[in-house]
């Protein structure tokens, strides 16, 4: 038996072990996929408005300032729970108007305060964006974030 043999066996074990862990990862992903669809997200609630809102969110690359569910840039507030922060679960209309007004009034141009740009978003898109935030806030995230400050 040559030296090379142990090394090629080592390579095979490396590949085999990798495939083993990859299979487990895929199996768990499949399970999680089902869990997300059935338990943690409101699939029926993904209306065309929510879908459009997600597209608006992406078109303006909001994630490169804000976080959503804790992922993104850390320059601006978490928006996964912005609906709750505006009291949307108690008074939906006020929250909706509050978020829309906020976006419309940007930038604040207050000196020394982080600025949000002015985005060309029409009324219908604004509503869609709020629909998206509202929907995201219903995702069961193992009770994250710890408080309404996000």
């Amino acid at each position, binding site marked *: 038996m040559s030296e090379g*043999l142990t090394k090629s066996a080592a390579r095979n*074990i490396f590949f085999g072990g990798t495939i*083993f862990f990859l299979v*487990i990862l895929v199996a768990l992903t499949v*399970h999680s996929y089902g869990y997300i669809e059935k338990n943690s997200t409101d699939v029926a609630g993904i209306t065309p408005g929510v879908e459009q809102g997600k597209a608006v969110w992406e078109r303006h690359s909001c994630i490169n300032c804000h976080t959503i569910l804790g992922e993104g840039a850390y320059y601006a507030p978490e928006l996964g729970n912005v609906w709750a922060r505006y009291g949307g679960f108690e008074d939906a209309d006020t929250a909706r108007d509050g978020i829309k007004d906020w976006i419309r009034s940007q930038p604040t141009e207050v000196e020394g305060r982080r600025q949000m740009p002015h985005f060309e978003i029409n009324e219908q898109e604004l509503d869609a964006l709020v629909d998206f935030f509202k929907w995201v806030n219903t995702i069961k995230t193992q009770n994250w974030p710890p408080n309404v400050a996000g």
Partner: protein
Amino acid sequence: MSDLNEHNSGWGPLSSLPGNPIMWVLIWSELLVFGAALSGFAVARMLDVQTFDASQAHLDRFFGALNTMVLLTSGLCAALAVRVRSDGNSSASRWWMVYAILIGSVFLYVKIIEYGDKLDAGFDIETNTFFTLYYLITGFHFFHVIMGLIILAIVAWKNSLENLETGAAFWHMVDLIWVLVYPVIYLVR
């Protein structure tokens, strides 16, 4: 055997372990994972002992013990396969591996019955922390048994002594983990 000693050199400290060194990297990774998981289990139990003890009562403790014996016996067959191969008896070694695989499969059969019973009774991985850990730890071990059987089949086919030692080492690790998992999850209360 002297050539075996030689070609296994250069792996640093891993050289002195029987079988392929990378298999031992895998074995150590697994031991650390299960060690951490069982420690986590113990701490989670400490924090919520009522739920844990009430949930544990739903497990079938006898099936767990039965499976311990199944694995120990299968492990014996694997060890004997290596033993007779080193005496130069290749075909007997194959047969011992086949026995090891057959007996090892019983473990899967028993475990599937157990999982079926638990799921029928409405206990799934999200029921509570006890069942999350029960399914994670035993499920992860279950995957190892499947993997182990595949490895045993491969080394029964390509049955050089080196391969047999490597494959059997993985199988004994699976065995070893179950010996630790069974009392901690099924019995301690």
